[in-house]
């Protein structure tokens, strides 16, 4: 077997090599006055890092307040500490030994290829508010989504060690914001733009996507100087499968009633592999899954067992900006499910391998990023509606909170449809439109608290109706209960 498919065998892809687009500018496309003042940038960077630390401290403190937080969360807490995370040192060491780091955005970069070439993938989508002003110096669109401007601002101020360590960044062309972000970023670093077909169910979309991933493979190989062979790709796909299995296990554990883990903790666990070594994450996630399974057996709830069961849907929520999940859970709700690309969607879909031959492996790995994705950049996006409906049922969701980032039109555009389909199932939905700053918390609190009140009222009403129905069948005069 190794002889046939091993190192020495030229891969079929060589025959159909995809063309790598040459989009790099020969000279900077933008004049950026602010970039010349290095002192100001240093100062900005210090402020940004300081604020990030404050947010991390704040949200971690809040998350630790849970009466019975899983002990296995300690590792995830430590790794989520940004600048003081031990991960920074590991990445520095990797780079000192000649290793490469490749930044990614969204959930479309083929991580297996990056790892197979011995490079470290890091997801760079930012949740910080105070980098937006800098980002706006080059993307001055007040109506543009905060994530795009924030991410650009992080690069412009050199505030994130993960961004700074990245030798290149893969930017998928999914929405207007990411599209132009990639273009601006080219003045600062090597950017690999990837065409994502928006109608994905056709043969031409499949073959285009496959070619895009092939082009990425060439770019990764050129950057790292490592060719990707069968063995490495298989090893990395197997690692991804292990991660996807444990992610599913954790996902299923959130169906427990009463809940055994907070929504914020789940979200953090799902975001840790954005920068971590996936194999280490698998170990710790497995420990967490075991602890949670024990809790289910012992009936230990993490929060009020009567808390309304809420699903979080919509635009991504990036650590350390946990404003919305914090608000929901501190107002008495329990987030039992999410369909965020920064949450369960990241590791939800397994790679479906038929046979461990190069073509099958490569195709299955590439398609895994496109076909099952329910990002609203695709049309029609019926699978997303179907998945949300299924989650409402599986997780016994009583209310959906739909997070919209102002300027994120694709998520906002699907909100009405999601709301209608949730309501068809008798589940109310609250649409929250917000930005990255923390200042609108009180305004949002009014909405969230009233929404939770509504969910409780509906639950009461449903229980009453059930009792009434029971009485009718039974014919007896059962008590109305408490």
């Amino acid at each position: 077997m190794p002889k046939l498919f091993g190192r020495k065998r030229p891969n079929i892809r060589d025959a159909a090599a995809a063309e790598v687009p040459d989009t790099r500018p020969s000279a900077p496309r933008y004049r950026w006055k602010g970039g010349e003042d290095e002192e100001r940038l240093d100062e900005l960077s210090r402020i940004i890092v300081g604020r990030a630390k404050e947010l991390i401290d704040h949200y971690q403190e809040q998350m630790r307040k849970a009466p019975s937080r899983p002990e296995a969360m300690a590792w995830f807490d430590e790794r989520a500490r940004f600048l003081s995370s031990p991960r920074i040192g590991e990445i520095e060491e990797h780079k000192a030994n000649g290793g490469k780091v490749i930044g990614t955005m969204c959930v479309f970069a083929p991580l297996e290829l990056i790892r197979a070439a011995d490079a470290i993938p890091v997801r760079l989508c930012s949740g910080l508010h105070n980098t937006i002003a800098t980002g706006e110096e080059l993307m001055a669109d007040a109506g543009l989504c905060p994530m795009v401007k924030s991410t650009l601002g992080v690069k412009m101020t050199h505030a994130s060690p993960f961004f700074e360590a990245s030798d290149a960044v893969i930017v998928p062309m999914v929405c207007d914001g990411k599209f132009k972000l990639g273009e601006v970023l080219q003045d600062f670093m090597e950017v690999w733009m990837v065409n994502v077909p928006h109608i994905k169910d056709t043969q031409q979309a499949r073959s285009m996507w496959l070619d895009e991933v092939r082009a990425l493979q060439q770019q990764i190989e050129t950057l790292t100087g490592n060719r990707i062979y069968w063995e490495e790709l298989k090893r990395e796909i197997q690692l991804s499968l292990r991660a996807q299995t444990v992610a599913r296990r954790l996902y299923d554990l959130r169906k427990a009633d009463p809940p055994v883990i907070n929504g914020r903790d789940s979200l953090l666990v799902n975001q840790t592999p954005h920068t971590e070594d996936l194999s280490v994450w698998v170990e710790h996630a497995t420990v967490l899954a075991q602890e949670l399974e024990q809790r289910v057996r012992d009936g230990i709830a993490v929060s009020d067992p009567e808390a309304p069961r809420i699903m979080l849907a919509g635009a991504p929520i990036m650590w350390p900006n946990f404003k919305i999940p914090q608000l929901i859970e501190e107002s008495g709700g329990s987030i039992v499910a999410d369909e965020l690309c920064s949450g369960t969607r990241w590791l939800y879909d397994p790679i479906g391998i038929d046979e461990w031959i190069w073509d099958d492996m490569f195709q299955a790995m590439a398609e895994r990023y496109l076909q099952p994705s329910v990002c609203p950049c695709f049309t029609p996006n019926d699978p997303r509606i179907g998945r949300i409906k299924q989650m409402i049922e599986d997780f016994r969701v009583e209310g959906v909170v739909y997070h919209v980032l102002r300027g994120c039109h694709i998520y906002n555009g699907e909100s009405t449809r999601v709301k209608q389909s949730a309501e068809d199932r008798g589940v109310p939905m609250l649409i929250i439109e917000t930005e990255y700053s923390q200042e609108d918390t009180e305004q949002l609190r009014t909405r969230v608290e009233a929404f939770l009140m509504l969910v409780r009222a509906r639950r009461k009403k449903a229980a009453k109706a059930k009792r009434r129905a029971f009485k009718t069948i039974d014919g007896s005069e059962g008590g109305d209960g408490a």
Partner: protein
Amino acid sequence: MTKEEPVVAGIDLGSTYTKAAVLARDRVVGTGITPTIVDLDAAAADALGEALQAAGMSRSDLDMTVSTGYGRRGVDIADHQVDEIYAKARAAKWLGSPWGPVRTVIDIGGQDSKVIRLDEAGDMDTFLMNTKCAAGTGRFLEQMAKVLGVPLEELGEIGEGAEHPVELSSTCIVMAESEVISLIAQRRPVKDIVAGIHRSVAERVGNMVKQIGVEEVVFFDGGPARNVGVKKALEEFRGAELYVPKNPQVSAAIGAAIVARDILREGKLPDGKPLEGIEAENPIDHWEGPPAGGGGQ
């Protein structure tokens, strides 16, 4: 006064005004209203003092005080807090209307607008609130009155009988302001401009009503409900007559007072949590966390 007839107060700390209401023997016995200032405690004390004075009572007569509105968490005199959407829904059910039970509440506040639908029993069924934008709010009307140089209270009448209401293309306060100024420069009659302003608010709020589905009786609430122009425009837009309560500005405060009464009657908070010191009926309400040794930090 027996425990069955408690004296309760509600304080609504809105973005513009702080309102208070005192309830005794299941009737509103006093209300108070004062501008919201930075010192929320002082604003709350002022409004409550006014309401108590009207009722001929003092603070020591109060069995419970509940606060609502944006500033609800910032005041010490309240025993509990409740969000204003719930308070409004509660007030609309309790206040009712001469035309029958209330099923839809339209509330235009200083900084936001909301539409609440109640079920047959008068309990909150669903609600919708404006996005982070001042269009379709009291603040919008206030700003427009300022630009036109007319008192806010008279804005409603000024727009009456307009033949060609203007169409405002922007609903953003700042942008609409310059649009109105340019309309003044074009010498459009003030009447038409004001009617256009009312229409823009009505459209904005009316669209929310459309989304949620209107059911009569419609209860129109909040300060701007006193503006006949907005009311008429909204009625035209929705095709349903609106019932405006006698004192629309204080209904959230009344709702908060009702919530205080509910709490005392039922022995638990609106979210089902037990009230300290009062025996709750349901043991699950006492749940305070898992048994010891469960972890946590």
